């Protein structure tokens, strides 16, 4: 099952009954419009071919020019590209705030940054990294790549997807504008009560934080549902469950974790804002509330959050490893099961963030054990990747370098995590820089390094040009060294007792030298990102032109042009193998018979991926954008008066009606 593919042994296309259900659309005995034969006047893709087919489809699936066109687009590639760029801009903003903190900490008793600004900086840094970068970046890649990889022409709910992008964008802008106006949040990325409650944090700062959560989580959930349905129902015929690319599996499991984890943080932040704005008492012990309730709700989300950040990265790693090892993944089934196990286990562990709050002994041991349990699926995955590389013929291009960097850093982070998972040690180093070091090893190792690899890897698909290999290698080494110089010393400063979230320290503590080293590292690390940015911009302009499949990879996105045309594929591919392009090297088996004049796509069955329906995909529409604007007005208004929810719901309802109301003759919107 996992041996290398040499010949065309998997090439055989199964008989039609295994590729299509052949069922009627209407219920038995009902004369349904669903089964009406297609209009003979409508041009279909079994009647045209070649460049003419490409051009006509590109017109049907295209996005109008001009501002209205840009805001109405429902093309998953355009939305996905915006999502990716926006998330990376937030990564840079978060990075800048980190560099500012590091400059302040470089020497004892530094006067560069006031304590108040420092509080805002670490809050903005953590919040931006977790909510505006960490969650969205994985989903952003899913928006762009999942439809291509499963052979679809668009994401399942393209208007919902567009809506989600604007909501995310507006939420991110809101909190950064608040920060620039010196009303940025200052209570840490998890805004614990009572500190964040009405009594200790008057003013609007925390309200902006809580509403930013609402924005980003609404967006995140909307994308997660679109991705799940795309994977379930939009797969190319023949893509059975065991032929789904590992990246797509990772994004699917990730979407499920999002669906079940994000409601917890929305509940927490909603209760927080209600306590602050309309005088509820959820977290007020004087009136029967309880502060720990907030912590439970927050960490019920907060722990899976780490895996929401990590799971897409495993998808990037799998894709890169397989392509550059030149063989199918070793242990595909084991990898998929590990992903699923990680998804489940990620929910069992939230209490370990609260060890120091004094839990019953038995409970604490239970949670220690289950925290350690999650090391097993992670270990299996790393083993399978290494085995794939070992047994393949690895080609060490930049994407693979970043994956190797990920192995080292992530494993180091896992080791310090195992140290933290034991209650006694956690009580020792709780809230010191040891913890800061640990989670940056996990987060940057587990997400940012694979992300950089992924960008080098898919850049030719996104832009039609290759990135510079030479700069890429420089970038990698600068980033790897810069990262370790920054964060390794923090383990020691932490063990020496330096607490996190302090804006300065006394020279007598003896932490000065290590902090200086960390700051130098941070500057190096940041420089690596500047180099990266330069590589992106110069390659996008002048890089060598990329073929559709420059890495000779096996998954379907590489069967589309680079960059893909609006329709993704001129005809929907038929899948006969886990790595379809390795199995079909001379010609691509495809489905024909879809409309060229209307946006039609294949809907298939969940397990066997049999083609079932030819359904219309929604046309572009300005309403999702307007709905997002109405949502934003409501959310931001609610910070100032609860009535905003009432009057804001009227434009919101109108916009939603515009969204769902069918247009003139084209049927089947939504």
């Amino acid at each position, binding site marked *: 099952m996992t041996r290398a593919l040499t010949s065309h042994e998997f090439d055989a296309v199964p008989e039609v009954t295994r590729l299509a259900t052949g069922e009627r659309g209407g219920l038995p005995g009902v004369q349904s419009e669903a089964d009406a034969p297609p209009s003979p006047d409508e041009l279909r893709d079994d009647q045209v071919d070649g460049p003419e087919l490409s051009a006509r489809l590109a017109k049907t699936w295209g996005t109008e020019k001009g501002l209205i066109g840009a805001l109405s687009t429902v093309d998953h590639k355009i939305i996905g590209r915006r999502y990716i760029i926006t998330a990376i801009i937030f990564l840079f903003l978060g990075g800048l705030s980190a560099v500012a903190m590091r400059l302040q900490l470089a020497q004892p008793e530094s006067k560069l940054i006031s304590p108040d600004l420092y509080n805002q900086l670490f809050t903005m840094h953590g919040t931006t990294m977790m909510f505006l970068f960490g969650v969205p970046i994985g989903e952003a890649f899913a928006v762009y790549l999942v439809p291509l990889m499963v052979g679809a022409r668009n994401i399942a709910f393209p208007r919902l997807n567009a809506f989600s992008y604007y909501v995310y964008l507006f939420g991110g802008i809101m909190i950064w504008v608040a920060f620039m106006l010196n009303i940025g949040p200052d209570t840490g990325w998890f805004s614990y009560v009572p500190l964040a409650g009405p009594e200790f944090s008057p003013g609007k700062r925390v309200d902006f934080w809580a509403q930013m959560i609402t924005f980003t989580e609404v967006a995140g959930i909307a994308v997660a549902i679109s991705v799940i349905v795309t994977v379930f129902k939009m797969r190319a015929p023949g893509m059975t469950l065991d032929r789904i690319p590992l990246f797509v599996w990772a994004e699917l499991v990730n979407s499920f974790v999002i669906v079940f984890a994000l409601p917890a943080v929305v509940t927490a932040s909603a209760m927080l804002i209600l306590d602050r704005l309309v005088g509820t008492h959820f977290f007020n012990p004087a009136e029967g509330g309880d502060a720990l309730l907030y912590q439970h709700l927050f960490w019920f989300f907060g722990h899976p959050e780490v895996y929401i950040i990590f799971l897409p990265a495993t998808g990037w790693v799998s894709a890169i490893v397989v392509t550059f090892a030149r063989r199918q993944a070793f242990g595909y089934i084991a990898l998929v099961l590990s992903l699923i196990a990680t998804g489940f286990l990620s929910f069992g562990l939230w209490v370990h963030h609260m060890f120091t709050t004094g839990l019953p002994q038995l409970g604490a041991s239970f949670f220690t054990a289950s925290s350690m349990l999650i090391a097993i699926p992670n270990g299996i995955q790393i083993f399978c990747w290494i085995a794939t590389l070992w047994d393949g013929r690895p080609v060490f291009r930049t994407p693979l370098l970043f994956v190797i960097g990920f192995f080292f850093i992530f494993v180091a982070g896992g080791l310090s995590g195992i140290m933290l998972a034991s209650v006694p040690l956690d009580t020792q180093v709780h809230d010191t820089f040891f913890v800061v070091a640990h989670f940056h090893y996990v987060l940057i190792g587990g997400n940012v390094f694979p992300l950089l690899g992924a960008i080098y890897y898919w850049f030719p698909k996104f832009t039609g040009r290759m990135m510079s290999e030479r700069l890429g290698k420089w970038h990698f080494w600068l980033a790897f060294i810069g990262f370790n110089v920054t964060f390794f010393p923090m383990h020691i400063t932490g063990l020496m007792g330096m607490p996190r979230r302090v804006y300065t320290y006394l020279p007598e503590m003896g932490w000065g030298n290590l902090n200086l080293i960390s700051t130098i590292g941070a500057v190096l690390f940041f420089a690596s990102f500047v180099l990266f940015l330069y590589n992106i911009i110069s390659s996008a302009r002048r890089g060598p032109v990329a073929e559709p499949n420059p890495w000779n990879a096996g998954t379907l996105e590489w069967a589309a042009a680079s960059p893909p045309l609006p329709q993704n594929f001129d005809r929907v591919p038929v899948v006969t193998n886990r790595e379809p392009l390795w199995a*079909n090297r001379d010609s691509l*088996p495809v489905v024909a*018979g879809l409309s060229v004049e209307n946006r039609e796509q294949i809907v298939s069955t969940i397990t066997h991926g049999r083609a079932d329906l030819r359904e219309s995909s929604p046309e572009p529409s300005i309403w999702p954008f307007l709905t997002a604007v109405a949502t934003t007005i409501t959310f931001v208004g609610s910070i100032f008066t609860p009535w905003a929810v009432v009057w804001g719901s009227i434009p919101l309802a109108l916009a939603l009606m515009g969204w769902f109301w069918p247009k003139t003759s084209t049927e089947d919107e939504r």
Partner: protein
Amino acid sequence: MTAGSPDPQVPSGLLPHRIVLNARQMPSYSYGPRSPIWWGTLGFCAVEGMGFVLAVGAYFYLVFVNGTWPLSAPAPDLFWSSLHTVLMLGSLYPNYLAKRNGEREDLRKVRRDLVIMSLIGVALLGLRTMELGTTHVKWDHNAYGSIVWLLLGLHTAHLLTDVVDTIVLAVLMFTRHGHGKRFSDVGDNAFYWYFVVASWLPIYVIIYWFPRWW
């Protein structure tokens, strides 16, 4: 057609096509789990169901922390809330009819059913308003009041959304758009209504009966 023979005109590097399946005769929509929107609706039910589960969890957490319950207020009245619950249960039948007649693509009956469901929805909103007046506690009174109003607010938001959705769909079915895939939408709307009813029953028991038993 390219079947079998590589096409010389394809853009450089793209694989030529080999047609192995034709989708011309496939249906253009269907019902229930065959249709993507059904799954989307299920997804939203999962998210919102999770929200309810967490809010209910918070409710019992507060009960547990406080020991006494309800906090310095009598339990909320049963009259309006029970009437509301009974009407909700009663709505299941016309809701079922709407779904079934949608599947039969019977426009006349679908119109009738959706009008009935819209009227029931409006009546339920009226009952909910009465119900909110008999909770004997305000959200800013204490944590008990806060969580009761949170649960009621959450559910009312769902109720309102689905009622508006039903009304819009009903109007739609009286226009020229009332055919084809819209019948499938009727089924998904009915499906969501089941969720609104199903999520209410535990909340009803928890808000109105649990404090009497505790």
